[in-house]
């Protein structure tokens, strides 16, 4: 039985279409700011989508996901500083560094469960934050300016706003496609099964930790990509991108949009960052409005915005 068109599908399609057509709007109106804003939104949506893979589908509540934004960013920034400007080097290094960090942190963190898991991932991310603050050669506390964006040998020009935006959007859609395949694969079912009932999964023959660790590494690597893009976007990387509140932001985006849904994190990121932008233009006490607003959505819209839209459908 196939439902006609659900509210969820329509809203998702509209958001996707909006994101694809944004540069056209920007060019037509001459509004450059909106393109810059949405480049950042798309990059953070990518980070949120990666967190959703492990938090929403894998049931692993990581409170240290922003660490990968920093690791990906610093990989780009440090290589650029040392005169290696090629994106063909920078991006693979960013991904490899994120994967390695995830492998080590994951192996240690997954020995714990529940609140302890949240706290230990948080602690490791804070450690990464302080390590970055101590890197005197790379700006320390003040951060590191990236004077030249990653060079892709004429294939794509990251300094061109529209090209860069589409690169980010392509990465986002690519990652979501990948997550979609993973979620429905053998591996994805095992990871979701572990979220649902770990003891049962062990009893039918799955070594839980191994699958969770691989999921942890995949999610971390994807977020490292977001980090590399983010450093290019701001031409700057600083320890602040790894601070624990940034990890919190990512979590809020995922929960707001709807955990364990493919496009939830994208919608969460768009809504969260747009609200932040709009409210902060109205008043400097924007957080006072934002807080209760988020609380209402989480309290009354179980399953976030995607959950709300899903219920709309049933009338």
């Amino acid at each position: 039985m196939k439902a006609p068109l659900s509210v969820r599908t329509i809203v998702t399609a509209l958001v996707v279409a909006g994101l694809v057509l944004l540069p056209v709007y920007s060019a037509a109106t001459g509004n450059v700011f909106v393109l810059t804003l949405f480049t950042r939104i798309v990059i953070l949506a990518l980070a949120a989508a990666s967190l959703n893979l492990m938090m929403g589908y894998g049931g692993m509540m990581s409170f240290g996901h922003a660490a990968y934004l920093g690791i990906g960013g610093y990989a780009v920034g440090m290589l650029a500083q040392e005169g290696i400007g090629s994106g063909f080097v920078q991006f693979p290094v960013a991904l490899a560094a994120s994967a390695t960090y995830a492998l080590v942190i994951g192996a240690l963190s997954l020995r714990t469960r529940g609140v302890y898991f949240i706290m230990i991932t948080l602690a490791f991310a804070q450690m990464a934050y302080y390590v970055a603050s101590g890197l005197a050669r790379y700006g320390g506390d003040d951060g590191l300016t990236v004077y030249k964006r990653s060079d892709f040998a004429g294939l794509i020009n990251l300094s061109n706003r529209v090209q860069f935006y589409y690169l980010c959007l392509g990465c986002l859609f690519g990652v979501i496609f990948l997550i979609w395949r993973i979620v429905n694969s053998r591996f994805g079912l095992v990871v979701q099964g572990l979220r649902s009932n770990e003891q049962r999964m062990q009893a039918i023959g799955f070594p839980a930790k191994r699958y969770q660790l691989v999921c942890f590494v995949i999610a971390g690597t994807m977020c490292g990509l977001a980090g590399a893009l983010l450093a290019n976007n701001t031409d700057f990387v600083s320890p602040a991108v790894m601070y624990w509140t940034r990890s919190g932001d990512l979590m809020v985006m995922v929960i707001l949009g709807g955990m364990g849904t493919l496009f939830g994190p994208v919608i969460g990121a768009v809504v969260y960052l747009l609200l932040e932008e709009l409210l902060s233009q109205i008043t400097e006490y924007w957080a006072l409005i934002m807080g209760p607003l988020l609380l209402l959505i989480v309290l009354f819209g179980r399953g976030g915005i995607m959950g709300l839209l899903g219920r709309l459908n049933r009338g």
Partner: protein
Amino acid sequence: MADPLLHVEKLVRRFGGILATDHVSLDVAQGELHAIIGPNGAGKTTLISQLTGHLAPHSGSVFLGGRDITGLPAYRRSALGLARSFQITSLLPDFTAADNVALAAQAHHGHSFRFWGNARKEKALRDAAQAALDRVGLGGRADLLVSRLSHGEQRELELAVALATRPQLLLLDEPMAGLGVTESARMVKLLQELRREVTIVLVEHDMEAVFALADRISVLVYGRVIASGEPQAIRQNEEVKRAYLGDQHVVVKHG
């Protein structure tokens, strides 16, 4: 008796000062249906959990087919042909019945570090799942979420999940728990069929079922095996009568 399929030797497990498993030794022959009975708190589930690897014993050993599995984690034992059902239903509630069983088949059918193909479209897994569901009479409920199934159906699904791992030895922890009269009768009939294919260790409170099904019975009281033998012998055993009729209350015909 030839080499037993399951051999338990002087198993000990303490919880604080309590000896929950007190030097339990047990042999289960290939093809046998071996029941473990005992009053509440006798340590039956504790024993099962040590057999499946969910709980580590403090001393003693467990052998499966002559191989020492005492130190192996649950998933390795599953790979060696040990399957269990849980006393308190333990399934994946947000998955369909078919998914629950297909995952069990998947665990024993190649590795699962496959990230691309759609697992729900793997015919071998779906067929195996459907076969196991048909076996327990849930063939028509395959696409329902587990949370939508009745308690009785969930108990049957537990069995289907265990069967889908193609076990040599099936450990059933009170499969009749919470079932009504007709459901219980169906379960007994199902076990009567299954016992021809697989060796079963059955922990059960329902004495009628136990005496109808078991080849041999071991009686567990306060963590100790006080008697082990054929149903007729157990029925006559004075110590068993005392254990059931003395300070412990009668559990005969108790859901």
